[in-house]
């Protein structure tokens, strides 16, 4: 059985005030898979995520062309972009704990969504922190500042925050840059569990991370999607473009 299409991107192009970041990217992300995007710096991976989240509306120089369909519906036709953003969680390369307590960080999105009952918020905070494998470490100090946590803990806090809005899709942008290897492995285990429930897009500069986790992998280079394919096939040499295999083998990047 072929899984339903969660995200369909066709002929996407992005430029910032005339400077092209992405051109002619088309790909499909299926429900309940981990889809990884690999590629060297400046290949347009982050811009790709921004376009999905309609950040172009809040970034004055950013222009987006082409079509993106989320759940089969063009994201330009979502009249409420805030609802769109709430159904897509984002995790940034460097952990960005808002200058609030651990509890308030995780309760931020639910509060935006209008949830006020303390019991309900408590439940969401606990569930999100558990899913992000952070609950046991912070359950006794939920009122202390999120920014006082270690780097690895902060990154799990931002993952918990992204999960608190109960998203259908989670986009992680090079989440392991500021995280120690042990925490990285814990988060990776967590992502494998998580994909049973939601769809995950994993932008990573670690080729092996994509290999460990992803069902499908796309290789981006200088704003173009060179190749998309099943991860296993890609890593066992079934590549169409010689640049892909060179990048995977670490000859450049």
């Amino acid at each position: 059985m072929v899984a339903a299409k969660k995200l369909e991107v066709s002929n996407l192009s992005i430029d910032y005030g005339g400077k092209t970041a992405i051109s002619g990217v088309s790909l499909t992300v299926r429900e309940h898979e981990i889809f990884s995007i690999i590629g060297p710096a400046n290949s347009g991976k982050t811009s790709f995520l921004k376009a999905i989240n309609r950040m172009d509306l809040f970034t004055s120089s950013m222009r987006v062309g082409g079509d993106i369909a989320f759940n089969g519906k063009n994201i330009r036709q979502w009249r409420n972009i805030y609802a769109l953003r709430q159904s897509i969680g984002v995790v940034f390369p460097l952990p960005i704990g808002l200058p609030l307590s651990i509890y308030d960080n995780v309760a931020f999105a639910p509060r935006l969504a209008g949830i006020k009952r303390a019991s309900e918020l408590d439940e969401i905070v606990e569930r999100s922190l558990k899913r992000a494998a952070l609950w046991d470490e912070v359950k006794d100090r939920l009122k202390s500042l999120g920014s006082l946590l270690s780097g690895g803990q902060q990154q799990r806090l931002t993952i918990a925050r992204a999960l608190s809005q109960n998203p259908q899709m989670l986009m992680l942008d090079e989440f392991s840059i500021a995280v120690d290897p042990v925490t990285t492995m814990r988060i990776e285990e967590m992502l494998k569990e998580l994909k049973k429930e939601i769809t995950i897009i994993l932008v990573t500069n670690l080729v092996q991370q994509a290999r460990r986790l992803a069902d499908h992998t796309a290789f981006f280079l200088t704003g173009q999607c060179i190749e998309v394919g099943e991860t296993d096939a890609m890593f066992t040499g079934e590549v169409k473009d010689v640049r892909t295999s060179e990048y995977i083998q670490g000859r450049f990047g």
Partner: protein
Amino acid sequence: MFVASELNQHNQKTERLFHFLFALMTILLILPVAVILGVLVVKGGSAISLEFLFTSPSNGMTEGGIFPALIGTIWLVAVALLFSVPLGIAAAVYLSEYANDNWLTRLINLAIINLAGVPSIVHALFGVGAFVLFFQFGTSILAASLTLGIMTLPVVIVASRESMQAVPYVFREACWNMGATRWQTIRRVVLPNSISGILTGVILEVSRTTGETAPIMFTGAAFFLPYLPQGIFDQTMAMSLHLFVISTQVPGVPENLPYGVALVLVVMVLLMNSLSIAFRTYLRNKKKW
């Protein structure tokens, strides 16, 4: 073993020289403040008493206290802030959080800078034309305070905008990605983290407004009034104008009286500045990133 070469010694001498020079310049800066305060205390200290603070001037302003002027200044500053602070912060929020960088915002920024450079006497004449005559507020606290308010606007706007811009952009992105609107982001993240800078700007403006004379002298401050203002459409006495009047316009004022008025004025301003610094330090220590 290390032996200082001629070049080393030369460098060390130059270093000591510049260290001394910079320290000297800094001390020279303190000097005028110390001298002014010293002179005021020596010459005006004898005029200060509770009675001085809480009675009206009497006998053609050659005796008595400064109570109506003190109260009047508080009125003027308070009404001016009620006008300029909400307006200034709102404008700063727009410029910092909503406006794109285009010719219109650049024009607005230019206008704000120019507004800050307009001499206070020009503000005074504008106040007469706009508030006293055109809006027919008459010479009143309202007209004088609006004039003061317009003068303080640029600093409130610039200070607020700068402190909002100092809140890291990534915080906003994190909020937007969670589906927060711009306003939700401003209210929950930007304003709480920039409030210390905004308040510093406001309090510094309070102390400047307290001392301004020209903008109020044609718009609402009176030479002498035997009663306290009852509302914003009354005229009022003010500390700064009172000082000007008894120093230059009234014959037979004992010498310690103007010095005493000046001392009270300066101490008021210094107190407010110290308050602002203490408050800023307090809020900065509470900062969370």
